[in-house]
């Protein structure tokens, strides 16, 4: 198999990872209140199964999966359900959420669940266990992981690719996970390879994480065909299709899923979450979040209970500096700004970046000078300049003809634009207009 270690185009944003790269993962104490939106994953929102006044233990199911492409939601701490109501959602809308007043001084031991012995399980049983544990892709998109474990039968999956690229600036949660818990990641890989019947696995890690690469290489067991592959440091190396190109040399056709070329990609965080399901029986009730940025007093990598309000999280990290300007969920390239700090950390929150004024871009947008830098940056070979012109005048149908659907909103074009044109935002708005859904969904 020709190995490329790389893909064409892409950009080199400043990494800014030194803020949290060396900091070990620590656990954040439980806040007084948790807010768990019923819509935290791609697919159908979960179905509520508790009522106001109920007492829940840590790890209890509070909402059940509604269909196959849906996962349940579990209480991240022991406490009492105080309300089920509309609450600010990290995406800017309001969504139905369960508010839990956390028990003070409780031991917070998760209620024991039956831990299935993974060796004897069939694919269906593993899929079911993973779904019941509420595991979703922790790289940001929050797509239910169990769906990926059961790819359509007509495709033969030959390689499992684990995404440890973490190409977004600032974020270090995957980096720290691999450096500190390599055995857990490899156990997760073992379970996944068993469930999917895949013989080969490649872990792609950008070369700027030498300690993670070394730790993972040391931890690889002899009986597993797992390759740790150092990749070129370039954004968006961690985008699914770019990673596949870099690791296998194969390009996923436009509009097709990776499974059509025989690979499945999983994020390092999701793999670690699967490992926890079969190690301890713990459902996905907490996740590792990088809380960072020059606008924050104490950047760190934290294990955060899902449902912690951003306000509490930022306060725990020493609050913001006087020149803090923007709070971004996810990385600065693809993440979205958040307007309301009452919004909680959800399963898909990879990081919270508080940007200081000097890290944000100016507001002035200049006319396009047709320099073509966006064309050189676009990893999927679109013409962002042309698409941007169409988006400004609302010619969305023509944008579809110009392959807007291939755009993954990585933001490389907007990053290199010398005229400061917010191309990625234009495309995001165009995609929303094409879906014909109001921006606020309830």
């Amino acid at each position, binding site marked *: 198999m020709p190995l490329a270690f790389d893909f064409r185009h892409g950009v080199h944003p400043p990494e800014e990872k030194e803020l949290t790269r060396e900091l070990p993962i620590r656990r954040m104490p439980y806040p007084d209140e948790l807010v768990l939106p019923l819509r935290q994953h791609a697919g159908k929102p979960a179905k509520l199964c508790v009522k106001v006044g109920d007492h829940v233990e840590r790890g209890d199911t509070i909402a059940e999966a509604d269909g196959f492409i849906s996962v349940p939601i579990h209480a991240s701490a022991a406490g009492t359900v105080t309300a089920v*109501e*509309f609450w*600010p959602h990290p*995406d*800017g*809308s*309001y969504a139905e959420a369960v508010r839990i007043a956390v028990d003070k001084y409780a031991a917070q031991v998760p209620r024991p669940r039956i831990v299935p012995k993974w060796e004897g399980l069939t694919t269906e049983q593993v899929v079911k266990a993973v779904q019941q544990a509420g595991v979703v892709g922790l790289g940001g998109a929050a797509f239910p992981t169990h769906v990926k474990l059961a790819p359509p039968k007509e495709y033969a999956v030959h390689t499992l690719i684990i995404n440890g690229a973490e190409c977004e600036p600032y974020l270090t949660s995957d980096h720290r996970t691999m450096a500190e818990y390599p055995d857990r990641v490899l156990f997760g890989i073992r379970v996944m390879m068993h469930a999917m019947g895949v013989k080969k696995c490649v872990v792609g890690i950008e070369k700027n994480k030498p300690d993670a690469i070394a730790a993972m290489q040391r931890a690889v067991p002899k009986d597993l065909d797992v390759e740790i592959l150092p990749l070129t440091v370039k954004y968006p190396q961690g985008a699914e299709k770019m990673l596949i190109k870099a690791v296998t040399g194969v390009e996923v056709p436009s509009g097709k899923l990776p499974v059509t070329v025989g690979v499945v990609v999983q994020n390092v965080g999701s793999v670690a979450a699967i490992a926890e399901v079969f190690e301890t029986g713990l459902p996905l009730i907490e996740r590792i979040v990088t809380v960072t940025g020059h606008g924050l007093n104490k950047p760190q990598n934290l294990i955060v209970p899902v449902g912690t309000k951003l306000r509490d999280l930022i306060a725990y990290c020493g609050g913001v500096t006087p020149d803090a300007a923007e709070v971004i969920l996810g990385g600065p390239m693809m993440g*979205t*700004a*958040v*307007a*309301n700090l009452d919004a909680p950390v959800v399963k898909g929150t990879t990081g919270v970046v508080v940007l200081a004024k000097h890290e944000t871009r100016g*507001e002035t*947008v200049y006319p396009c000078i047709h320099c073509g830098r966006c064309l050189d940056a676009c990893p999927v070979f679109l013409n962002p300049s042309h698409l941007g012109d169409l988006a400004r005048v609302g010619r969305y149908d023509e944008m579809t003809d110009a392959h807007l659907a291939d755009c993954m909103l990585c933001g490389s074009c907007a990053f290199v634009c010398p005229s400061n044109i*917010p191309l990625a*935002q*234009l495309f*995001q*708005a165009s995609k*929303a*207009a094409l879906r014909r859904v*109001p*921006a*606020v969904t*309830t």
Partner: protein
Amino acid sequence: MMLQAVMILGGTGLVFAVFIALANRKLWVWEDPRIDAVASMLPQANCGACGLPGCRAFAEQAVDGKVSPAQCTVSGEAAREAIANYLGVDAGEERKRVARLLCAGGTDLAVQQAEYRGLPTCSAAAAVAGGGKGCAWGCLGLADCESACSFGAIQMTVTGLPKVDPDLCTACGDCVEACPKGLFTLLPLDGHLLVQCKNLVQGDDALENCKVACTTCGKCVMDAADGLISIASGVAVVDYDKIALEAPKAVERCPSGAIAWLNGAQFAGVPVMQRSNR
């Protein structure tokens, strides 16, 4: 030599001319001449407000008697009468409809949670954390509707809300499509009751984000005629099939002013923002 070329060209030209003339006779389709006449009386805006693909399609259907002239909401009273007289039909009753905004939370009444910096369009702002307004359902005030309106009927007020001029509004529905929050709806102009709120947060919590939010207190439901107003999933809803029952009493006890009694335009007393102020 010269003559030969002229003759060949002229000859072939003549042959084809005869052929085309014959084909024109043979393939001629009779078309009602009234269609062109009616079409010329229509506004030619091709806006689609009537639900038909363009003014000519409307003219065809009008001549066939499938639509009444009044169903073209864009043409004025005189034009409708002219078409009706020409076709010898009744102009038909069509209640004049206008676009109504289901939000009254201008910059003076609604809380702005975060500052939005970026492209000054609603669709772009809505893509970034919903636009930064405290109320996730409310009007962003960046005038996507104003630029979408082809009749110049929408102007932004000083408090950042679109003000619809009922005389110019033709109920074409372009603003309904342009609004990323889906705040516009087309309603009869002679209706008075309007719940100017779409926020689904219940109770007084809603007032934290906007002083004119509907708190679903239910007072309007009690004061209005039976079944006219109901509370549906977090906001009061007027049943416009029963609009004949409406009375001003319904809005008197509204604690926030979310439900309004309109006479003509919305936000009638609020001045319009001048272009130079933007």
